[in-house]
């Protein structure tokens, strides 16, 4: 018989603990097929997708869309489809709106969705005091009446994009009775929606665990459990998918994407998304000279940058409309032409010996190769007679400077537009009254102004195309590229990429053998 000494007992205890830890991990690596684990690139700050800063974070919409439903649904190609509304539109003179609410939908607590929920959500969204960042959009309709499943409302100020917003940021239907019962804090602790997944467990900065909603009105969820791990560090996300700890991840460096998608057991998919890289031009200093603005645009080899810095993952653009957007016009071209750039500069008295000088601001690490792209652009500019000084700033500073119209003459930024409407890309970024614009001039406002309330859709889109052409001709902004989103996943899965960039669990399924 062996004597158990204190030292031996301690050793056995430590050994058992280590074994338990390792065994526990074997379970972790071998996740079952009814669970989908996504190594997600953002934390979820709040469950209320209609208020606060997180409501306008495009990345988080993937989670909101799993738990909640939007008034109007959106397919991965940005086209619209019925959501909680089965029909919608204006009357003939566009002074009233109508909406048909889907029947037979239940909230996660089992209570039925009612048209009153929809009305309450719309009215709440339109009140600035609730904290909806785009309350002005929602306030454009009101005075609703309910008749059965049909809602009618008054158009207070005509906004041609109002129904598109119903599939966009803050366009979620919230549970009136439940929210009023539990309040904002109670809702954050135990949120309910009508979406395909119910919230099961949540730990901020760590994970969100969802369970399939068996009563979901739409396509039945493919997984019993969906876990979002909030892994904000890109290196850690690569490790998550490579180690098998997660089934899917996204937004990783393109070098890693190319490496991982070639590995056995993993697959990769990439798609151009509704997010573009651009250089804001502010109407100040040397940028008041049209020749300098146009020269700065013509001097940039966008395709070269995409090929060399982004390994080909990107699509060069010449307007603020990506090819998937409704007002995209492929005939508007600016083109890479360094000789033309040098000639334009010479016409204004600038040359390599006497360069046009200005500051360009950029983030570093916020978007793939953002700083490196600007370095390359500054090098291209130098060759034609532009000497730009790079100033690195945080994105928070960009917002502050932009809102105060204090950006440098050139400032790199990325602009998302998941509904693909020109009003939410060219409009908000170029109209002088928008706090998000950098170039502010009366000539452009005169062209954009009437389009905000244009009721004829064909004329509206044609008008925006004309605005885009005018902007390109005047050089009021430098669109650079449409970003591509890389997604890596286990070979046993199938992932449908989403042009809106939201990696919704509903777009992931088990691959057919």
């Amino acid at each position, binding site marked *: 018989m062996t004597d158990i000494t204190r030292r031996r007992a301690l050793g056995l205890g430590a050994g058992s603990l280590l074994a338990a830890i390792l065994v526990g991990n074997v379970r972790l690596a071998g996740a079952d097929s009814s669970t989908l684990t996504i190594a997600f690139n953002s934390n979820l700050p709040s469950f209320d997708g209609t208020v606060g800063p997180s409501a306008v974070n495009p990345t988080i919409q993937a989670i909101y869309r799993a738990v909640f439903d939007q008034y109007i649904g959106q397919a991965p190609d940005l086209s619209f489809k019925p959501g909680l509304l089965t029909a919608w539109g204006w009357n003939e003179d566009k002074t009233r709106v109508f909406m048909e609410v889907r029947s037979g939908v239940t909230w996660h607590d089992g209570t039925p969705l009612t048209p009153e929920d929809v009305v309450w959500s719309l009215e709440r969204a339109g009140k600035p005091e609730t904290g909806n960042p785009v309350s002005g959009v929602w306030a454009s309709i009101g005075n609703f009446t309910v008749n059965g499943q049909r809602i009618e409302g008054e158009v207070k100020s005509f906004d041609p994009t109002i129904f598109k917003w119903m599939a966009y940021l803050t366009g979620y239907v919230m549970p009136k009775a439940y929210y009023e019962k539990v309040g904002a804090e109670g809702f954050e602790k135990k949120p309910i929606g009508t979406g395909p997944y119910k919230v099961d467990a949540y730990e901020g900065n760590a*994970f969100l665990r969802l369970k399939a909603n068996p009563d979901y009105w739409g396509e039945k969820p493919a997984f019993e459990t969906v876990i979002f791990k909030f892994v904000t560090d890109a290196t850690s996300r690569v490790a998550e998918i490579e180690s098998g700890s997660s089934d899917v991840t996204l937004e990783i460096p393109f070098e890693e994407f190319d490496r991982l998608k070639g590995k056995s057991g993993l697959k990769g998919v990439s798609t151009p998304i509704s997010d573009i890289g651009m250089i804001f031009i502010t109407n100040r200093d040397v940028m008041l000279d049209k020749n300098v603005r146009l020269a700065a645009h013509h001097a940039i080899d966008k395709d070269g940058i995409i090929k060399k810095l982004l390994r080909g993952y990107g699509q060069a653009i010449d307007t603020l409309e990506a090819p998937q957007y409704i007002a995209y016009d492929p005939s508007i071209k600016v083109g890479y032409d360094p000789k033309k750039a040098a000639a334009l500069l010479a016409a204004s008295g600038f040359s390599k010996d006497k360069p046009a000088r200005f500051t360009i601001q950029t983030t570093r690490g916020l978007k793939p190769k953002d700083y490196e792209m600007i370095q390359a652009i500054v090098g291209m500019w130098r060759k034609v007679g532009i000497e730009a000084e790079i100033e690195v700033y945080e994105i928070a500073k960009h917002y502050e400077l932009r*809102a105060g119209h204090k950006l440098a003459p050139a400032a790199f930024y990325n602009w998302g537009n998941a509904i693909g409407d020109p009003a939410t890309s060219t409009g908000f970024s170029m109209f002088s009254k928008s706090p998000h614009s950098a170039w502010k001039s009366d000539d452009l406002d005169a062209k954009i102004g009437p389009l905000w309330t244009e009721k004829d859709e064909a004329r509206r889109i044609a008008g925006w195309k004309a605005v885009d052409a005018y902007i390109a001709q005047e050089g009021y902004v430098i669109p650079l590229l449409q970003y591509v989103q890389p997604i890596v996943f286990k070979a046993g899965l199938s992932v449908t990429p989403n042009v809106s960039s939201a990696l919704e669990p509903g777009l992931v399924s088990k691959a057919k053998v």
Partner: protein
Amino acid sequence: MLTAFVTLIGVAIVIFCLLRIVPGDPVAMMISPSATPADIAALRARYGLDLGLFQQFVIWFKAVTAGDFGASISLRRDVVELIGERLPATLELAFAALVFGVLAGGTIAVITTLLRRTPLEAVFEFLNGLFLAVPDFVWALALVLVLGVAFPVLPLSGRLDPASAPAFVTPFYLLESLVRLDFATFSDLVAHMVMPVLALGLPLAAIVARILKESLLEAMGQDYVLLARLKGMSPLRLVLQEALRNAVGPTLTLTGVQFTFMIGGTVIIERIFAYPGLGNMAIDAVINRDLPLIQGIVLIFGALFILINIATDALAVLLDPRQAHG
């Protein structure tokens, strides 16, 4: 105690002013594209940012003294409640790293003292130098690659396995799982802590090892140790029973200081390992310019540092009562 209070007020003033001087306006991050100047002014008023700096500080400070740190702008929840949820995770991690650092460093110090003037001493010194030279976040990335990817034996992220995470009553998961005798959850929690603890603890272990070894060598030359050696006491017993007690003082003081640095280090380590502590939340708060939350977190970190220093001083007096008399 008065000094601690004055220090905290100083921290409060500095962080409050600093946050309003550095670029990045939280309101600018929330402005609607269709917002008018009046809308922007209303939003600013909603968060009290329309008032003068002094007025803002007085309102905030009065509320803080009443235990009200305000509401987080980005998380839309009470700051005190949020800190109460996250601080325990950071404390568990930091204390585990401290225990590891002290035990590992102490062991290395004793071994290298015993191995003095042998070839093995150089090997240990080299390793110790390596631990000292490599910063915690580099250790973190190296550990992720080795123990997370190349030999995936440890979980890479989070505080526990999301698939089986149970509901906890308190935010002290480690302690609670032990009290509930839930050893499966306990081992899961420990597994998730191993890599962050190693990343935080290895540099601390190296410092402890270096300082303690110096003190041990000095103590080993004292008369009482020589006497014990002449009496035939074994080298191990000489170190552990005679030299260690007198050598531990300087190491303890230094460990207290290093512990405060290590708590600061949890910010980046928590981020890399997606560990849901105060540091991880602090980074999000800074990105979102969530002023009430940043102020609350910094004040809590400040209070923690002061408490650690007080505890270190008290412990030093306990171990060496002569220090109580200067």
